[in-house]
């Protein structure tokens, strides 16, 4: 390495761009992904500061101003209980983010732990984990979410837990297949020949190589969990009102459509745009991090 750095003919060698910079360079080319990223960042920021900038509390009702169209006082109108829709949406963003990020994190941790274990240990561990994965893939996990929410209630915690604990199978399968592909590969064999210990191999060789795939899988997982959370609301098993959520607002908008269409424009529109933004980001990340193609 030291030799390669010596300047030839007094010309400094072009600095090698880091992996990250190269990935960002590829990401930037996808205009939709950049726009999506901007929206996602805005969404994250609102998720943090939303409750402070919301003009009203989410539980504030005012029957004198119920079912109003957008005005300067209520820029997104009010619903049948006089909730200010703009504030409801700001609070919903926070709830949606907490549940989606938390649930994705749970799925991810469980999936990665089981997948790594199955892939590295092999044998009966692999068999048990893969049977479990097959089980989770055999039926729509949404039904299991419904059952869990029925048992544990419709609060933030139970919903987060239910979505998280049913969503790990995809991550486990992905990481297992990646680990299996690498475990007997030349790189790991070389490391082992040099005397590297198992934890060292995991940390320095396996983990960096599965990172990209994991980030992409996470980026696809978050909008998926947002959708499941809203889906629970549509069936009436989402966050218990008055806690605001996009699902509740969208479900309520359907029945009020004829009289008060603005109840639908803003929540459904923002929710749809958010999912799109997350998906564009995920798609962009996939292109940027895996130039070879999908995972």
């Amino acid at each position, binding site marked *: 390495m030291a030799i390669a750095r010596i300047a030839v003919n007094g010309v400094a060698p072009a600095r090698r761009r880091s992996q990250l910079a190269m990935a960002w360079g590829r990401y930037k080319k996808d205009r939709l992904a950049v726009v999506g990223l901007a929206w996602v960042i805005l969404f994250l920021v609102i998720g943090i500061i939303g409750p402070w900038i919301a003009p009203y509390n989410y539980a504030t009702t005012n029957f004198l101003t119920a079912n109003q169209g957008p005005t300067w006082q209520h820029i997104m109108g009010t619903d049948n209980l006089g909730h200010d829709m703009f504030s409801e949406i700001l609070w919903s963003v926070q709830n949606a983010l907490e549940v989606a990020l938390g649930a994705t994190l749970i799925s991810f941790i469980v999936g990665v732990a089981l997948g790594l274990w199955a892939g590295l240990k092999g044998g009966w561990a692999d068999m048990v984990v893969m049977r479990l994965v097959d089980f989770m893939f*055999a039926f729509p996990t949404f039904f299991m979410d419904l059952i869990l929410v029925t048992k544990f209630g419709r609060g933030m915690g139970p919903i987060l837990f239910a979505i998280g604990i049913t969503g790990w199978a995809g991550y486990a399968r992905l990481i297992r297949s990646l680990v299996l592909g690498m475990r007997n590969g030349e790189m790991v064999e070389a490391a082992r020949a040099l005397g590297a210990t198992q934890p060292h191999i995991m940390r320095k060789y396996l983990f960096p190589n599965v990172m990209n795939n994991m980030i992409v899988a996470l980026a696809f997982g978050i909008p998926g969990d947002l959708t499941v959370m*809203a889906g629970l609301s549509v*069936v009436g*098993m989402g966050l218990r009102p008055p806690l605001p959520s996009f699902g509740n607002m969208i479900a309520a908008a*359907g029945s009020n459509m004829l009289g008060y269409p603005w109840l639908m424009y803003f929540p459904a529109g923002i929710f749809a745009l958010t999912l799109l933004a997350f998906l564009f980001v995920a798609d962009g990340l996939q292109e940027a991090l895996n130039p070879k193609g999908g995972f």
Partner: protein
Amino acid sequence: MGVVRFLVKRVVSIIITTAAIIAVGYSLMRLAPGSYFSSTTIGSQMGQLAVQNPRLAEQYEHMFEARYGLNEPMWKQIFGYIWHLFTFNFGNSFENPSAPIITQLRSAFPISFELAFGAVLLAVLVGIPLGVLAALKRNTWIDQMLTTLSLMGNAVPSFVLAVFMVLLFGVWWQGVLPINGWGQWQDAVLPIIALGLGNVGSITRYMRSSLIEALRQDHIRTAEAKGVKYWPIIFKHAMRNSMTALITVVGPMFAFSVVNTIFVEQIFSIPGMGSLMAPAFQADDYPLAMAEIYILCLLVMVMNLLVDLGYAVFDPRVKLE
């Protein structure tokens, strides 16, 4: 021989999976708050009785528990319940005790099945041509537009699309297509589109990438060199390969559509499985909820089995294992 072994294995695994789902569902719901005595029909009368004559109310409850085996050990209840569901003996629901669950399901199931099936059919009929178009015009604006649109179809969930459609056809273009109810064929149009758009997106993207892949193959170049015309190359040489693998995309798609019928039926007020399921969960009507989940899971698993069989039939290289 291989087929028989495969079938036996898959049927056994379906039985084990459904039994596990039922066991988990039953034990969780049994421990959850709410029972027959708290349902809206019985709850108020039982409350009255408990005030007027607590002893009688207690006796009544014990009788009920003995009658339905609720005082037996949990594992016995679970196995009993699994057996009952496997023999399609669903009993009566809490909220609507006069009508057995099986009669409710009998009218609701075909509706949901039609919707889910229609959504997959729509996806295949629309998605394949769009995917072929995108692949043949790849890296042009048509391709870019189709890829972006299909990504959007994937991203926006069916219930949001359904709500948008209610807005379109209920407020802006009133009377063009019905936005609720069930009975005539027009009623199925909007729900199927709402369900199917996501699937159209998946199939378009799948078709595009697999056709691009297929067009790079050597046998395509050979065909070109022989002087085979453009369209025969596409249809006879390239598309054949991608069509067989398409079946594997259809399996998960059907499962996805089954779940989404629940949402869409809710929004278009269609009397299918979904419109039974939502109130069942909201009212803690566990027998009905479990029966619904069982039937829908079974449907998904049987469909997946059929898909795998179909794959082996269409592609002789695939070995059933």
